[in-house]
């Protein structure tokens, strides 16, 4: 059995086990959940450490395949290459951190753990799957618990509306994706039809898809996946959804589940439909500016810390899209780094705001202030997370965003300059204003309890450590990513940076 199967099946199995444990054995439930997440994380670390970039550049490893419905072309097929390797590691670390943070009293926590593990296992399964059917199925498996969790354990007075909105938006997005995926499936002649991503890539490389088909399938996928990743202007569900969601749900969704759309674009849309991709990137690069500039500006105006963090997370997605829009090796590699980095970052930030919300009972910025002296640990980590959020080197976001910006320069210098402005200035302004208003200064308020025990600190420390490790040694990610991105970029044949370099080499 491939360790990949273990990584995502274990949380799902634990969810099943918990469902038959009586609900008053709370400690047992917690232990089962935590243990499964921990083993799953260890397996992910094992896969990450044993992935061998030198063997057959960019090929899938840890592959496991069993036929499941051969007449429909569906098989159970998992494997990793450079692109999903980091995502699976990130997802499992975030799942563990979320499970550890969930270790506190709440109503109906048996159900909560079941849904949390379903969410985590589902999304890890989606990242590991190399078959479109399971790819989609596992994503839905993770998505549905999200809605239920926001509806049942959500916070704030707009909880119901937030649930309603996020459900509608994401279901619509997923529906468009489904249409697109079935469209792809039907483009194959009957008899060789398959959902296997590897087979599909191979087939469409040899027989390019008809332009007329690409013309409608690509936008369906682009906007379907786009909605899932809160592409501007389909982003309004995200800030409200995250600020109403329970902490752990926000961590998993903003950190991990959201990356599914970007992953789908890179894994499915680009390599299968290169012509349409070329045509749509210009639209996409301007929509990214909507995320980076517009949502950044909106974040500046937020009066609620969670809404600010939510908008900032939407703004960060702009960089991920921009890397895709660059269609260059450097840019798309940067996108994958941004995805991993933002996963850790978003989980960390929502984990911390969740802690703060539980302690202070509010996240209205006007009611907070001077908290650093009262919550030294949480405050310090949060300030570091916020600095990471405005692109300070030393944290994983920085190399990712830098790669995206370098990679996009030859595609459009203007867009890049505006994105640099968004990254350095707008991001800096709202993050530093938040630090100033929430943590600095002095204010009379009832005492709050800091996370003082090692156990309470572990999840935050773990996520922060991951951010720093990948920020200082980005090669841990990029050396694998670039090998797997290279064939995709070559298939699209669009790398302006490399083309320009070749032309210069010729002329000399």
């Amino acid at each position: 059995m491939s360790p990949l199967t273990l990584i995502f099946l274990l949380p799902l199995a634990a969810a099943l086990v918990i469902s038959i444990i009586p609900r008053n054995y709370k400690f047992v439930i917690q232990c089962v959940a935590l243990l499964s997440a921990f083993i799953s994380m260890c397996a992910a670390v094992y896969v990450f450490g044993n992935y061998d970039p030198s063997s057959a550049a960019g090929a899938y490893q840890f592959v496991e395949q069993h036929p499941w419905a051969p007449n429909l072309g569906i098989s159970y097929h998992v494997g990793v290459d450079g692109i999903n390797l980091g995502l699976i590691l990130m997802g499992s670390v975030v799942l563990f951190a979320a499970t550890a943070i969930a270790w506190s009293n709440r109503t109906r926590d048996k159900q909560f753990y079941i849904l949390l593990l379903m969410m985590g296992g589902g999304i890890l399964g989606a990242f590991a799957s190399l078959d479109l059917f399971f790819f989609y199925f596992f994503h839905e498996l993770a998505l549905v618990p999200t809605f239920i969790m926001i509806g049942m354990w959500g916070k704030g007075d707009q909880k119901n509306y937030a649930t309603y909105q996020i459900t509608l938006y994401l279901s619509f997005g997923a529906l468009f994706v489904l249409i697109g995926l079935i469209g792809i499936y039907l483009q194959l002649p009957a008899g060789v039809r398959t959902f296997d991503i590897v087979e599909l890539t191979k087939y469409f490389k040899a027989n390019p898809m008809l332009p007329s088909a690409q013309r409608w399938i690509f936008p369906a996928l682009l906007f379907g996946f786009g909605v899932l990743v809160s592409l501007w202007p389909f982003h309004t569900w995200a800030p409200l959804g995250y600020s109403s969601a329970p902490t752990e749900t926000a961590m998993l969704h903003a950190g991990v589940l959201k990356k599914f759309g970007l992953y789908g674009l890179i894994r499915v849309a680009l390599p299968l439909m290169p012509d349409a991709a070329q045509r749509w990137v210009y639209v996409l690069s301007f929509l990214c500016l909507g995320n980076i500039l517009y949502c950044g500006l909106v974040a500046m105006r937020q009066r609620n810390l969670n809404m600010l963090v939510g908008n900032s997370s939407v703004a960060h997605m702009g960089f991920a899209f921009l890397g895709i829009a660059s269609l260059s090796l450097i840019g798309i590699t940067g996108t994958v780094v941004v995805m991993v980095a933002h996963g850790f970052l978003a989980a960390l930030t929502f984990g911390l705001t969740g802690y703060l919300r539980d302690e202070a009972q509010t996240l209205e910025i006007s009611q907070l202030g001077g908290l650093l002296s009262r919550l030294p640990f949480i405050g310090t980590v949060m300030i570091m997370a916020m600095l990471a959020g405005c692109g300070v080197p030393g944290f994983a976001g920085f190399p990712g965003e830098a790669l995206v910006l370098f990679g996009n320069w030859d595609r459009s210098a203007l867009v890049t300059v505006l994105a640099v402005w968004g990254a350095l200035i707008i991001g800096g302004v709202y993050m530093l204003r938040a630090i100033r208003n929430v943590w600095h200064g002095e204010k009379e308020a009832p005492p709050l309890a800091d996370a003082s025990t090692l156990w309470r600190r572990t999840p935050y420390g773990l996520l922060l450590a991951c951010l720093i490790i990948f920020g200082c040694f980005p090669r841990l990610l990029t050396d694998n990513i670039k090998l797997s991105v290279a064939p995709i970029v070559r298939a699209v044949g669009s790398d302006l940076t490399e083309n320009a370099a070749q032309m210069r080499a010729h002329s000399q």
Partner: protein
Amino acid sequence: MSQPIPWLILFLPLLSAALITLFLQRNPRISAAVSVGAVLVSFILSIGVFAQFHSGAPLDIHAQWLRVGRLNIEFGMHFDALCVLMLLVVTGVGSLIHIYSISYMKGDPAYSRFFACLSLFMFSMLGIVVSNNFFQMFIFWELVGVSSYLLVGFWYKKPKAADAAKKAFLTNRIGDFGFLTGIILVWSTVGTIAFVGIKEQLIKNPDAFDTVGTAIGLLIFCGAVGKSAQFPLHVWLPDAMEGPTPVSALIHAATMVAAGVYMLCRVFFIFNPMSLHVISWIGAITALLAALIAIQQDDIKRILAYSTLSQLGYMVMAVGIGEPPAAMYHLTTHAFFKALLFLGAGSVIHGMHDEQNIWKMGRLREKMPATFWTFLIGTLALAGLWPLSGFFSKDAILGAAYHNHRLTLFAIGIFVAFLTSFYMFRLVFVVFFGKAKSDAVHHAHESSVVMTGPLFILAIASAAGGFFGLEKYLQPQFSLQEAPGLEMTAVALGLGAFAIGLAVAALLYRNAETDPLPVKMVWFCKVARRLFYFDRFYEEVIALTQDALAQFAEGVDFMLKLFVRFLHGTTEFTGRALRLAQTGSLQTYTFFFAAGIAVVLYFMLLR
């Protein structure tokens, strides 16, 4: 040079910062020892590097950091004359200030955090110094910004300090915006970001930058404008004085703000004549503007801050004139005497129990003799009295301007020299001479040896710094001809400016109780005290542009949300309306059924 030494110089401070942050938060003494030890060892190792260096071939050490496609980013160190000189300045002055802080920060509840931040700063600053490529320099450029943010906002409970930290970081980020864009442009044009590589390309083909040469020059210069607080981004530096005084001495006088000048010297070869012209003028404007504002400041640290701005303007002007060695020379001597002046000011503030207004001081030369004499040496060096170090380095810049026939710049330089002498002696007379202007003076006391010791060492360095021929040491690296030597016109006018400044200050402030100038020059003083309205102007501009845009975006977002709400609102409404028809009552359904049939029949049969 053996390989581990350069790595140790760079990473010891980082190790110290990490150790203190993770394990030593509750051990102030050990924290201080670790931090001071790290910087001292770095300093000693730097001397070792200097001793072995023999101005031989530059040494390049590097490891790969990131490589994707055509983008190859290394983590490397490039040791040449320029780098080694700067290493000595940073670690040397840094060591003294670390030692001084042991006493200055005593009793602060966050003593360990202070030393952790200082160590982090040393690491970032050394990273800039040794960088061998643009990207690595940008990384450390941002990291010094962060450490400056942490240190300016060290007393984060004070609203002013928290605001100043934010302002410093964001203003710097505006400069960094240009810097990063410039770096990407350089990379896209010549395909490399390594300094050596770019230089090689430019030697091979002087037109390698093509049409974007000026753009590259100015964008890269943006970085220096932010970090070295040049006009028009100078507004953050005076506010940054809210940080503890050792921080002002180390970061906002001696080292970090000089990083911009250092960077300009490091990549001097990329600037074309057009961008150099702009650079020289920006430097001159900053020098003049800041000196004018300094005349009317009342806070001892703010006077020194504006003085720093003004001197940085000199250095930038020197680079623009085409004499980086003169700039580095002044950078080095300035690091000595300005660190000395700030530490002296810290000693005064300490002795006066946190009073910073010079009009509440007076007669302190009796209470604090050690501070007074060292401060005086610093002032004389800054004002440019022969044979103190400032004389030689300032003359190198003025002489270069004269020699290169940049007479307007030369005139500005001389005038600024007069202003420098004037505002510095105003400070000295008001603080150390005259009558005691408040009761606090009577309770003032001299600081401990741990604080005055560094003052003496820096005083010696400020006095003697001019005799080592630093300029000649750097000359070969920039392959310039032999320096013109002392330009007699410049010397005469410079010394004249010094004397007039001293005389006017003595006349006005020898026994002054309050500032006589605002009465005599009403308009000028009003404008100067309001900092030439720059801060106000920027606030208005930001409110009119960025904040207005943000408000607009929020409005649009609201409309968007409303639209979405409308969409599913209507869907829901339709649903509810249709529900009215589904009553569940058989009679109603039968009625609708019959009515429907009737309508259909009507259309089919009767028409």
